[in-house]
């Protein structure tokens, strides 16, 4: 596991925790929960840029390269999709949808690490 994974571990769990708490407190999605999901997207963006730089620098991906990039693209689509889905109906349930983003991104980052090394 590399630094990118640990960044996503922290940001993802934090985002999931914040969104879960907001959902349990019966709050609708607000700036805090949406921004926490945006932070997950930023963490993924850092992973994306870092990975592109590493590939250009000549570092090989141990596993299937297209599988790695497939995970990356799918993971990066999750936060915008969840935010879109949650603002269509702003109820506490949408915060649980947002909460799913952090852990999902975390699991996908773990898989991406496995593929890379």
């Amino acid at each position, binding site marked *: 596991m590399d630094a990118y994974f640990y960044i996503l571990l922290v940001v993802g769990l934090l985002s999931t925790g914040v969104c879960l708490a907001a959902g349990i407190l019966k709050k609708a999605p607000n700036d805090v929960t949406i921004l926490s999901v945006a932070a997950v997207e930023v963490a993924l963006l850092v992973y994306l840029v870092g990975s592109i730089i590493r590939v250009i620098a000549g570092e090989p991906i141990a596993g*299937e390269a297209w*599988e790695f990039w*497939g995970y990356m693209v*799918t993971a990066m689509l*999750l936060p915008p999709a*969840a935010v879109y*889905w949650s603002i*269509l*109906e702003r*109820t506490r*349930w*949408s915060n*649980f*949808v947002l909460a*799913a983003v952090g852990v*999902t991104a975390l699991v996908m980052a773990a898989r991406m690490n496995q593929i890379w090394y």
Partner: protein
Amino acid sequence: MKDQRTASPAGQGPAGDGPAASNSRNTGPGRLLIAVYAVFAISASARAGYQILTKFPEAPLAYLLSAFAALVYVVATVSLAKAGSTWFKVSVAAVLVELVGVLVVGALSVFDPVAFPHETVWSLFGRGYAFVPLVLPILGLVWLYRRRPGGLASAA
């Protein structure tokens, strides 16, 4: 009659007698359910596609099963999001198939690990996915029962 198909996200309440009332499946907790199903539909499809394209001859049965599971999740996601009693029936069918699938494949993968390598969403009752595949159809059925057309809304 003309605007039956317009899926109003705001649940119309007990007064609705048909299309409006059945729209209540995609609001509130239903949105969370649909979102989780969507994630499974995407990940199962991607996994099945990858397995079939790269290593199909290794375990054709397991990978066809992966593809079937992916299809079930896609149908469940779409039908849960749609209004109307026809889509309700499709949802019930998809979720029941999902439940039977995870139970049968889960049991087979425990008793006959050779024929069922741990490579489908449903293997070992979905252990690779934190048992979400096992819990999801049960939650789905509970949700569908509570929001069944002509159920609570018209009985109340």
